């Protein structure tokens, strides 16, 4: 694996050079937080940040996305016929994405790119994108990536991993896509051989700085109905206000709604992020709602991430341990606590407890 050293000047110049071949996105400080933005000319990504408030999922999967257009003009030949919007994606690069967020894309891909159906909108955007990650040297108290399938120096989902060591910046080239990005930036100076072992040390230090974790090893062994019928859901959901913040900030939440909007005699069919926290998400036209109660919706969110996904894909949990849902939940619901409850749930022990009380 190639390791490149990038000095301050070649960083600045390199980012600028890549903008002629890529639409380059990077973290930029907005008010109190960092957000991923399309970088303008001579604008640089601000790598001095912990993580963005919103995940970078919207770069591949916009919160609102036009799918089709239509005409309601009876005099037009294409009256009431859906027409595809142009969906040609020019190359994009996301600079400074954290390893946890990078892992979310291969996770979400399992939903959008299936043997039977390919979501052309998501796939084209994903395939056009080069993911240039930034390793985390320090962790937040809410980070638990090391027990969620990645780590502060995790590489899954990345084409390049950047490692910042004081004023020095190194780039580990992971894929040919990453190689192409580095060469378009003109980053070619190979790092001295001692750097590799230095990075290994940094990685070990960073990993040991992750203070929290989840246990997921037993999730697969539980039956769905045992977990579904577990007695703790109502209590865990008690404080929830169904605001949906957890689903919007989550890099692995992928659910969407489809809506038509008509302006005069023409309109668009668009899709918008949706949330399993909202009653309308599953509300039948008849009035019946299979997840009518708040706790049923809270249960759906955690069962999806920590049981249904686990069973369906046999590839870990649908969570990357970024901790956003914990930090931004207005009522302090903590996925780590719920995951541990699910993982350690023993229906027989529970039955005894109920009988004895």
């Amino acid at each position, binding site marked *: 694996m190639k390791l490149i050293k990038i000095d301050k000047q070649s960083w600045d110049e390199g980012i600028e050079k890549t903008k002629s071949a890529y639409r380059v996105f990077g973290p930029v400080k907005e008010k109190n937080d960092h957000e991923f933005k399309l970088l303008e000319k001579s604008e640089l990504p601000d790598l001095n940040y912990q993580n963005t408030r919103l995940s970078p999922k919207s770069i591949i999967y916009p919160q609102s996305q036009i*799918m*089709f257009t*239509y005409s*309601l003009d009876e005099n037009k030949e294409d*009256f*009431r*016929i*859906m027409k*595809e919007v142009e*969906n040609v994606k020019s190359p994009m690069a996301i600079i400074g994405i954290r390893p946890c967020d990078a892992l979310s894309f291969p996770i979400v891909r399992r*939903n*959008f790119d*299936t043997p*039977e*159906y*390919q*979501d*052309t909108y998501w*796939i*084209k955007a994903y395939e056009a994108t080069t993911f240039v990650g930034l390793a985390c040297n320090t962790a937040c108290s809410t980070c638990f990536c090391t027990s969620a399938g990645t780590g502060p120096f995790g590489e899954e989902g990345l084409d390049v991993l950047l490692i910042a060591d004081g004023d020095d910046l190194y780039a580990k080239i992971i894929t040919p896509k990453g190689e192409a990005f580095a060469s378009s930036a003109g980053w070619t100076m190979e790092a001295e051989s001692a750097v590799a072992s230095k990075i290994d040390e940094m990685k070990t230090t960073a990993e040991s700085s992750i203070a929290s974790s989840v246990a997921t090893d037993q999730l697969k062994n539980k*039956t*769905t*109905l045992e977990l*579904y019928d577990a007695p703790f859901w109502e209590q865990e959901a008690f404080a929830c206000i169904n605001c949906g913040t957890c689903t919007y900030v989550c890099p692995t939440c*992928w*659910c*969407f*709604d*489809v*809506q*038509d909007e*008509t302006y005069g005699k023409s*309109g668009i*069919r668009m*899709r918008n992020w*949706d949330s*399993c926290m909202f009653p309308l*998400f*599953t*509300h*039948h*036209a*008849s009035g019946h709602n*299979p*997840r009518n109660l708040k706790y*049923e919706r809270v249960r*759906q969110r955690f*069962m*999806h991430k920590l*049981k*249904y*996904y686990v*069973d*369906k894909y046999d590839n870990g949990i649908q969570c990357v341990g970024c901790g956003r849902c914990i930090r931004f939940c207005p009522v302090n619901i903590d996925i780590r606590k719920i995951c541990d409850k699910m993982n350690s749930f023993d229906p027989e022990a529970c039955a005894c407890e109920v009988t004895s009380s």
Partner: protein
Amino acid sequence: MQNPYLPYPVRIDEIITETEDRSLKTFKFVFLNPADEEKFTYESGQFGELSIPGLGEIPIGIASSPMEKGFIKFTIFKTGKVTSYLHAMKEGDIMGVRGPLGHPFPWKTLEGKNIVIIGGGFAFTTLRSSIISMLDPANRSKFKDIHVIYGARSPGMLLYKDELAAWAKRDDIHMNITVDGTDDPDWKYLTGFVPTVTEQKAPPGNSDTYAIICGPPIMIKFTQPVLDNLGYNHDNILMSLENKMKCGIGICGRCNIGKDFVCKDGPVFTLSQLNNMPKEY
């Protein structure tokens, strides 16, 4: 890469009002591009997303049979925004259809078996498709006895009345048409609820007999114990479910029951499968 969200344009060829209260109409669609009909190759039990630009899409079971060529049919209950608009549309109007979606009834498994079709109210659409398919001369010999128990509130609420009458005259299908009650002196079929009629008319369960049930939840709730008493194995009871859907292809995330999507992994499930799934439907 094919865009799975793009509907095929269709023209409404015919609209038939099915029930006396006018809440159910059958729409016959013809594809504007003949090649799209080839792509819409389906089997009984599958559904389509009907698309009206400006309003949205609705998932509806396909009421026509693959043995009927040149058109597809859907019977639609007027209930929400899209269906209400559709009920006001006219023959000749253009709209869209996506599909076929979901899994059909397991026809390979059903071959060589006795089939008992139990339907109630307007949940008889994919059952009509199934009956037409099985009775087709090309297919009838593939199945043993075919029993049908179909009930509605009143004679005027039955779907496909002419076809029901024609099937009732045949000797290769046992028709049990019933209504909850009627004061019509000319009513020549049965009176009574579907579970009761099932108890009286359905053949006993065995490994060679499969029941397909579609109906309102209350009918299913009371029919299930009847089938248990008749000795039906839960692997031999097939049901077709509904849930709120948008994409119809297992991506948008709302119609799941546990890890399975009603749209992509269903809508047909065996009772054995459903016994191990949350009751979120």
